[in-house]
Structure formats: structure tokens, C-alpha cells
């Protein structure tokens, strides 16, 4: 019988620009940060190329996160991070309206589980207010019980953070790339940047495939940010990956909570977040574990068990609901806690590194900041009239299976249709990896994890390749 390897069913993406092309900007890294920057420069008329070593976007830190759009209430005061979070949030609201992207304003509750934690609420509230996040209030355990009747009765009090919301962490950056493409940007997937040389006028960036020329390089290489940064000749920071493991509970649990349940941050205990997801699940996590490896995102049974126990403690009604998935993400943390954003004017090199744990929210804000740092004028292209198409896979909006003419349902747990899968495989920015296909459609990500559909998915991929 013929062996089919799902991983190899995706053809390597090709590039459509020639070797002599000198770009204004090369963005290295198609994580959420790189995607946001790509969009910003393209829309402002810079000739931009997005260079990514993987065969799809979001194959690094951005593939697994909690998908919360943060307000910045707990961000470091007077920091670039805070500015970018707030700007990013604002920009998201604008773009979401234009593109009809999913957004669910669940609010967050910072819950105090002990008297000691309760004492800290005041300070957290004040920090939030000083950060310019106005919609905050402290509520008693009685009010909390009305808002969250399933939460353990051990809760003492909570802060309501009205702005905290949920988004789709995968379609969102995909939308940024599509907007960039529409404005004339170019993509170079499966191009790993190995080295580079600045000739005083432009960079010759040596990749695993071809050499790419660009006047300015923006390094958004996430977990490899420090390595890529050394190409410019100096080492200014070090990435220390921080793993975050998660457990995802089945859709049956979705209505057990209404808001994002946040812990009171303390020095000793790393609390656990319990939140709904845009896809209709409950997510528990992430852990925070510093490590050397930039690739090791293995999950550990003991840690997952700890998360599970903690979740049962805080939300007893979770018991009896199936766990559908476990995974780990790596945050591109650095040797200092702040964002590592800097420009080297002599070398035309901008570093956007160490975007540790708020990059999904801040990416559009960061993009604006980086654009200003670059301080060059380009001629803006005409605004495209055609809307870009983003497939909705969240539960906040109509799903394909609720419409018609979709062919058949392939993944039964997540109700993913044949048409959704085919669409996700199509086009310049179609899925380039198994993970990419999952992120665009959610196939095999439900409770059976492929028991029903994995073989059919493999077949569809194979058919679409040939």
C-alpha cells in the first residue's frame, strides 16, 4: 500500500519576483509581528518582501497562544509594550470592522483566591488606571458569583477588566498578510535567512534559496530574533524561550464561564488562566517555563495534570468534560523583560525582538511604531476596492456548515466542510503545512483528533496537490 505522509503533501511555495529586484523593506519572520509589519509597510507604499523560513505563516511562537486581545491594564507602565498594546487594540477594532473579523468582548476577571491576593487588587486596579485603562472595577464575591456561578466559591473578590476580549489568533495575521499582498507586497516562504551583507546601499540577504536584496531589513524572527540579529554585526540581546503548556476542553464546556478568568500575579505562584476560545472551547494555561531550546514544544504529562487539577479546583464543573487537545507554545522572551525594538541607522536594520507575551495584541501597534522609526516616505498605492476574503472558523459568526453548497462535512467534531478545506489549500497564501491547514480550518482539532477524518483530509490534500 502507498504510504502518504501528511507533512509532505504540501508543495513548497514559489516566489514571484526576480533576483534583481531591490526591495525597500525585507521583513524577516512571518509570525504575527512580521505579518503586521508587512501589512503596514505595504499599505504605505514600500516595496516589501516577507521572508520566512517555514512554508507558511505562524509556524513559530505565534502558532499557539491564548488568543486574548489585551487592554494593557497590567502591562509595564510607561513602556513601549503598553503603547503598542493600546495602539494595537485600537487598530484591531478598526480593521475588524472593515473585514468583519471575529471579536468577542468577554471581559476579564482578575480573581483573588485568598485574603492576601485580595489585598493586592487595589494596587492592580490603580496600575490599570495609571496605564490609561479606564474601565475597571472591583466586585465582591457575591457579585462575582452572579457573574460566574460555576466558579469555585472560594473566590474572595475580583477586578472586572471590561475591555479584554477574544479573537481568532490565526485568521487575524492571515488577514494582515492578505492586505499586504493586495497592496503589492511579495512573499518568500521556505527561505531561511542565513547571512547578509550591507553594501552601503542595500542588504544582500543570503537565504537557503536565493539572495534577496532590500534597502532596509526588519528582523521579526521571534524565537530566532537574536541569531538573525547578529547578521548586522552586534549582539544586543539573547532570546530565552519560555514554554507555555495548555489544555483545551471540549465545546461542551463552553458555557461554564462567561469571562476570561485571570489569576492575581504573585512572585511565587504562576497562576492559571481559564478562558473561552473563539472556537468554542475552554482553554486552561499557559505555564511559564524557561528553557534553552527554541524548538522543543513538547508537552509534559505532570505539567498537564497540574493544569487540569488547578482548573478543576477553580471551575469544578469542568470535571466530566473531555479534553480535546493539549499543546505548548514558546514565547520569544529575552534576557530583559521589555520589548527589544531598536534601529541601527548606519546599517538600515530594525530589530523587533523579545515580543514575549502580548504580540498578538500589539502587532498592529508595533507595526505603526516601526514604520515611524524607519522614517522614510514612500508613495502610497491606490486603496484596493476588493474586499479580501477571510474564512470564519470561530463560533461568533456563521460557520460554513450552517450555509449550503459546501459539499460534505469532513471533520465532524469541528464541523469543517470540504469547501473550507479546499479554500484553505488554494491561493498564494494557502496552507503550506499541516499546521497551517489546521489553523485555517480546525480540521482534526476536535475531540476525536482525527479518528473520523484524518484519512479523508490526507486524501483531499493529495488531490489538491496533483
Amino acid at each position, binding site marked *: *500500500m*502507498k*504510504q*502518504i*505522509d*501528511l*507533512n509532505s503533501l504540501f508543495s513548497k511555495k514559489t516566489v514571484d519576483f526576480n533576483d534583481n529586484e531591490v526591495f525597500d523593506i525585507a521583513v524577516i519572520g512571518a509570525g504575527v509581528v512580521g505579518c503586521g509589519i508587512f501589512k503596514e509597510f505595504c499599505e504605505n507604499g514600500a516595496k516589501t518582501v516577507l521572508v520566512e523560513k517555514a512554508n507558511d505563516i505562524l509556524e513559530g511562537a505565534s502558532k499557539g497562544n491564548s488568543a486574548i486581545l489585551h487592554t494593557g491594564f497590567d502591562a509595564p507602565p510607561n513602556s513601549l509594550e503598553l503603547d503598542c498594546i493600546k495602539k494595537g487594540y485600537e487598530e484591531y477594532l478598526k480593521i475588524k470592522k472593515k473585514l468583519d473579523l471575529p471579536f468577542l468582548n468577554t471581559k476579564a476577571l482578575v480573581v483573588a483566591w485568598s485574603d492576601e491576593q485580595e489585598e493586592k487588587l487595589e494596587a492592580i486596579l490603580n496600575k490599570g488606571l495609571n496605564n490609561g485603562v479606564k474601565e475597571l472595577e472591583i466586585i465582591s464575591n457575591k457579585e462575582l458569583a452572579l457573574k460566574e456561578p460555576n466558579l469555585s466559591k472560594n473566590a474572595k473578590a475580583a477586578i472586572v477588566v471590561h475591555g479584554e476580549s477574544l479573537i481568532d489568533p490565526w485568521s487575524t495575521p492571515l488577514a494582515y498578510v492578505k492586505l499586504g499582498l493586495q497592496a503589492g507586497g511579495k512573499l518568500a516562504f521556505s527561505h531561511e535567512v542565513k547571512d547578509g551583507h550591507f553594501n552601503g546601499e542595500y542588504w544582500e540577504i543570503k537565504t537557503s534559496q536565493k539572495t534577496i536584496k532590500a534597502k532596509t531589513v526588519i528582523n521579526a524572527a521571534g524565537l530566532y530574533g537574536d541569531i538573525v540579529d547578529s547578521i548586522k554585526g552586534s549582539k544586543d540581546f539573547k532570546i530565552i524561550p519560555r514554554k507555555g503548556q495548555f489544555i*483545551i476542553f*471540549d*465545546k*461542551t464546556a463552553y458555557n461554564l464561564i462567561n469571562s476570561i478568568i485571570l489569576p492575581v500575579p504573585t512572585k511565587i505562584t504562576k497562576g492559571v488562566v481559564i478562558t473561552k476560545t473563539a472556537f468554542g472551547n475552554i482553554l486552561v494555561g499557559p505555564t511559564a517555563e524557561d528553557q534553552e531550546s527554541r*524548538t522543543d*514544544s*513538547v*508537552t*509534559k*504529562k505532570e505539567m*498537564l*495534570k497540574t493544569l*487540569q487539577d488547578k482548573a478543576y479546583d477553580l471551575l469544578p464543573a469542568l*470535571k*466530566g*468534560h*473531555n*479534553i*480535546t*487537545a*493539549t*499543546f505548548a507554545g514558546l514565547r520569544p522572551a529575552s534576557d530583559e523583560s521589555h520589548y527589544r525594538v531598536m534601529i541601527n541607522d548606519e546599517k538600515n536594520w530594525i530589530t523587533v525582538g523579545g515580543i514575549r507575551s502580548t504580540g498578538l495584541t500589539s502587532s498592529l501597534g508595533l507595526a505603526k511604531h516601526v514604520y515611524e522609526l524607519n522614517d522614510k516616505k514612500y508613495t502610497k498605492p491606490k486603496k484596493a476596492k476588493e474586499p479580501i476574503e477571510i474564512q470564519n472558523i470561530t463560533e461568533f459568526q456563521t460557520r460554513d*456548515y*450552517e*450555509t*449550503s*453548497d*459546501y*459539499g*460534505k*462535512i469532513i471533520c*465532524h*467534531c469541528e*464541523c469543517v466542510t470540504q469547501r473550507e478545506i479546499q479554500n484553505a489549500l488554494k491561493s498564494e497564501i494557502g496552507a503550506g503545512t*499541516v499546521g497551517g491547514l489546521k489553523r485555517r480550518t480546525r480540521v*482534526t482539532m476536535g*475531540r*476525536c*483528533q*482525527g*479518528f*473520523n477524518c*484524518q*484519512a*479523508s483530509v*490526507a*486524501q483531499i490534500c493529495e488531490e489538491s496537490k496533483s
Partner: protein
Amino acid sequence: MNKVQIAIIGAGPAGLSTAIELSNMGYDDIVVFDREDEAGGTPRHCGHLGFGIFEFYRLLSGPDYAKKLTKIAADRNITINLKHTLVDISKDILTFSTTDGLVKYSAKRTVLALGARETPRSARLVSGIRSPNIMTTGALQRFIYLHNTIPFKNPVIVGSEVVSFSALMSSRKAGINIAAIIEEDKELNSFSILKSFSETILQTPVKLGYEISSINGDDKEVKSVTISKDGIDETIECDGVIFSGDFTPESALLQENFKDFNFANNSVFISQAFQTTNKNFFAVGNVLRGALTAFKCFFEGKRLAKFIDDSLKQEKLKPQHVKIEADENIQWYYPSLLDLNYPSKILTNLRVNKKTTGRIIVSVNDIDVYEKQIDAKTYTNIKIPREAYPVSKNDTIKIRLES
């Protein structure tokens, strides 16, 4: 809104046999629904022999068995609506997703015959990398029997239930070498003869008492698994991992819609008449408890038909359900309701969670009324008789295991 007298969801052995039997009894307003594009249920992708002996007196392969059942239904002019995925049952309205749009049905009686699935790696919280080549037996069988392809050449199997050996046999036939069978328990979770069969005839080592402590590899490719026994690690090279068995009902939709959900069984409460706490809804087959053989599901369907007939003929008859609860040592049990309207010899059928020598004790309102000595493995079917102790409507029946 479409109207139908009896709607049956799931065209597997349980659903089809219910439909066929009802048709034999003269019912003709029946529609069977299934989300797949072919009827027959799970046997469709169990290409090995092992079906049909008790139903049709001949040994059939799964696909042949599925075809036979489907043909009988077709000969009886039973409507089977394929590519109909039940997505909602709130307010007793059945909503299906179809390529022609959402379709709604209201039925006098609904039969839920949704089957079961295996517990995947994620829910077992196993450490290690993620890869598409970490899958369940069900997924593998579909590769082999529905698509004629194989995803790997040298995987290990985790688990030792009957289905694990089904995975072993299917793999052999497809040219896949099984590097080892790994079982956490010290004994097989199926007939012990299968160990020597695997080892001597198939040369596949069976590692008993080993826990799978991590799946290793890089960039989505499985390279090996680490297994451990008494704190000592061992590495087995392989290119895939098959998690087999540990079936769980396909019951998410029911969990969302039934206020009273039986978490112990991960399914709805049902009486000996297969009736749920909603008197118009019945459930049958593996959706009740995870995997039993196809013929058990087939005969359950046949029995269910009589109860549906009864309930349609006696619209006024109110069920008199007494709840049966079981402790955490019980793997599953059914029925989980005792309907006092029906005489019954069996209180419930059950399996234990681990190999046990001990006693099963039944209590009514916390007073012990029955006990039974058992020496049971995880796959032993235990019948608990309904003896002459009195039970009335508001009582609680509890079952516990003492070892």
C-alpha cells in the same frame, strides 16, 4: 419543518437494526440519518473478518457486514438520509447540517445511535511531540480500508484491548510492521492468548506493565517512544504511535442538550427500555458506553424496536424512572435508569475499571440489598440481576465495588 414518526440518527449496526426491526413490525414512517456519505457505521472501515456470525450465521468482514445491513434496509424501503449531520436537538427539534442548508425535523420518537470513538492521545495527557502520525486505530483503519493508503511503516500500538489486535492485524495486511504493543497494565486487556499469538506468530513484542512516558522526534516526525516500567526507561524506535481502545461515546451533543447527563458513562441516562430522561428520545448501541461488538449493538437495536412500538401504542404511559448511580471503580454500566413499568431480570450490565477480585454491592437508599462476588478483568461483562427487593419511584439505587 419536516415531520416523521421515527427518526434514527446513526446508520451503524444499532441504528440500522432498529430501523429494520421497526419496519418488520409494520412501521413505514422511519428516516435514518447519518453524517457519512455511506451507511453502515464503524464496520465500514474494519476490513477484517469478525462480523455477522450471530446475526446472519456467517463470518463477514466489516465492510461486507455494513453492506448487508444497508441492503436489508434498502430492500425494506427504509429512507436513509446520508450527509446529514445532526448539529442540534434543543427543544426536541432535530437540526441537520446538509449541503442544501440546515434542515429541520420533528419526530414523534428519536433514536440516538451515534456510536463511539477512541480516546486520543491528547485526552490521555501523554508527554511529547505532536505529529500527524500519532493517531487512533479508527483513523488508521480509515487510511487502510477507505483510502488504500498507509501513514507510516513502523509504529507502536498503545493499549491491548481487542481493538489493539484489530490494529495489529490490519497493519500486517497493509504491510505495516508493528514495533511493539505497549500496555500499562500488567495483564492484557483482552484474552491473554493474544500475547503469545502476537509474540510467537507475528514476532511483535508485547510490553506489559509499561507506561508510555514520552513520544520523541523532531519537526513533526516521530522517531521513537520512551516507555518505562518501575522507573526504568526503554526506548523503542518507531515512526508513529497508534492509541487504541479506551472507547468513549460520541455524546457531546447529548451532553450539551440533556440537563441530566450521566458523567460516569459519558452518556445519557437510559432505562432498560433504552429510553432517556426525555421520553421521546431513545439511545442505543455504543453511544451508551463505548465499544461492545457489533452484534451486541445489533441485538440491542432489535430489542429497542419493541419498546418504541410500546411507547407509541401507549402514549399515556408515563415512565417511572429510578436512577441508578455507580462509583468510580465502574468503567460503565447500562441501563442507568430502572423503569418500574417494565419487569426486568437484569438491573444493569457493567464493566470494572481495573482487574478486580471483590464484591459488587447494590444498595437502595443506602441500604445494601444485593451483593455479588466477582473476579473480573476490565473486559469482563458483568450482569447484575434485579432481585426481589422493593424499589419505588423516589428511591436511589447505588452500585459500588469493594475489593
